């Protein structure tokens, strides 16, 4: 074996993706892994320029002159699949060039195009380790993603089942329905008070949502202060509340509660340097007016009474099925 042959055998193992060009730029030898990408006949005997396009450094002429040596090059197969490679060209011992190629970041796709095995890479080449890492990390990420999806689902379910309004700490609509269903099923009488804050939108618009949230929390405390234990206060919308008074059917008592509530809510709330002013319109429905009716019917009656209060000028309360009093405080 001549020295040249021995070198070639060594290079085939050390750099299994190299090409040997003669001084005219014609490929004289292609290392074994490159031959797996293109048949030997498509490489050996052809000019390097005929098989590869030089991407970087961008050639000034087409076809380009001799390959620059000692620089990091980027080349690409001219025919499909147009795999791109990093490359370096260095002078060969007896003239010509040795060009070594390596896969770039697109290696996972390149490996889909070619049936390569670890034997096709030099044992010192970290490509196989990289592929291992890519697959292992993808699998771990996928497992993590599944866990996240399940946790997200669990969080949504928990939220769904929750009975508390996170902003005010009052009951939410779900909790309210539970309370009402229980009362109706047990045949207990009760009163419903539907409260809607007046001018709340103006607070939000003028002073921001922080101020609005503050007013809502304050309103929640006022509503809790006018109710007894056993009553339910629920926030059922942005600035809408429903109060349930089990056992109460006395209009005079309910009127006093409603008037106290309006008076409490009308007290200005200081948020930073601003005084926020709201009021409340209230509709009240009594279960004994339509005995055995489903809770939704009573809520609708309270709602209709609330809108009667609004139409009559806000800041007042109305009993369902009655005329609107001329002034909210008149029954207090």
């Amino acid at each position: 074996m001549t020295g040249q042959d021995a070198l070639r055998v060594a290079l085939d193992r050390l750099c299994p993706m190299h090409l040997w060009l003669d001084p005219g730029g014609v490929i004289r030898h292609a290392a074994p892994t490159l031959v797996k990408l293109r048949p030997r006949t498509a490489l050996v005997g052809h000019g390097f320029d005929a098989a590869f396009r030089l991407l970087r450094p961008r050639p000034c002429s087409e076809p380009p002159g001799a390959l620059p040596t000692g620089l990091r090059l980027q080349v690409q197969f001219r025919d499909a699949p147009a795999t791109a490679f990093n490359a370096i060209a260095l002078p060969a011992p007896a003239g010509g060039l040795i060009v070594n190629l390596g896969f770039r970041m697109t290696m996972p796709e390149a490996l889909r195009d070619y049936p390569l095995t670890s034997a096709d890479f030099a044992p010192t080449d970290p490509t196989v380790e990289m592929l291992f890492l890519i697959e292992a990390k993808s699998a771990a990420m996928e497992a993590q993603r599944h866990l996240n999806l399940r946790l997200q689902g669990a969080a949504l379910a928990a939220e769904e089942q929750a009975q508390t309004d996170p902003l005010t700490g009052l009951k939410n609509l779900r909790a309210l329905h539970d309370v009402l269903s229980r009362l109706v099923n047990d045949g207990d009488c009760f009163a419903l008070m539907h409260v809607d804050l007046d001018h709340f939108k103006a607070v939000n618009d003028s002073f921001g949502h922080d101020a609005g949230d503050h007013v809502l929390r304050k309103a929640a405390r006022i509503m809790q202060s006018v109710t007894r234990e056993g009553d339910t206060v629920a926030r059922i919308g942005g600035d809408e509340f429903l109060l349930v008074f089990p056992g109460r059917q006395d209009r005079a008592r309910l009127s006093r509660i409603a008037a106290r509530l309006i008076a409490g809510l009308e007290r200005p709330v200081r948020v930073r340097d601003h005084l926020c002013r709201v009021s409340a319109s209230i509709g009240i429905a009594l279960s004994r007016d339509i005995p055995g009716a489903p809770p939704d019917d009573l809520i609708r009656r309270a709602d209709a009474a609330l809108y009667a209060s609004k139409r009559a000028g806000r800041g007042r309360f109305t009993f369902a099925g009655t005329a609107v009093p001329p002034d909210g405080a008149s029954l207090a």
Partner: protein
Amino acid sequence: MHGLINKALQAFLTQTYGAALWRRVADDARLGFAGFEAMLTYDPVLTDRVLDAACRALGRDRDGLLEDMGTFLATSPALPGIRRLLRFCGATFEEFLLSLDDLPDRVQLAVPDLRLPTITVEDRGGAFFLVTCQPEWPGFAPVVLGLLRAIADDYGVLALLDPGGDGVIEVRLIDRRFADGRAFRLGAGSA
């Protein structure tokens, strides 16, 4: 114990013996939940209880069951990733065997909080190897034994594998080209 290990045990029991058996085992082991999450960590006591419950339910000894689990991990079509990741470790079975001591590091690269027990491989000459698993996890050696049996088939070699006690596995390579073995290409999405 890392959720991946528990989940692997659950997958092995569910896919080999059915979901009903898994439910019985989970119940008997007083897990308190339906199944393990791969990316959470659990009290090692739970893994132990699941193994005990599975052995009771199936009337099997622990080592035999764990060996089957090792084979399952390397061969189950439901978990093609594991076989692929193992095959990345060597171009030939011998290379694979000699790189087994890298396995804990490789696993940790992928899942930083999963640390497998140390594995050492001794080439005793004459195609005889000793694989030793450190005793951190008592059931680890039988799993590796089952896994090695399956991987030897995958590479197409004929090897005799025997438990040598104390976490040691004796590997005698009889024929390096016994069968064709399964092809392994580096490209993802291939065999």
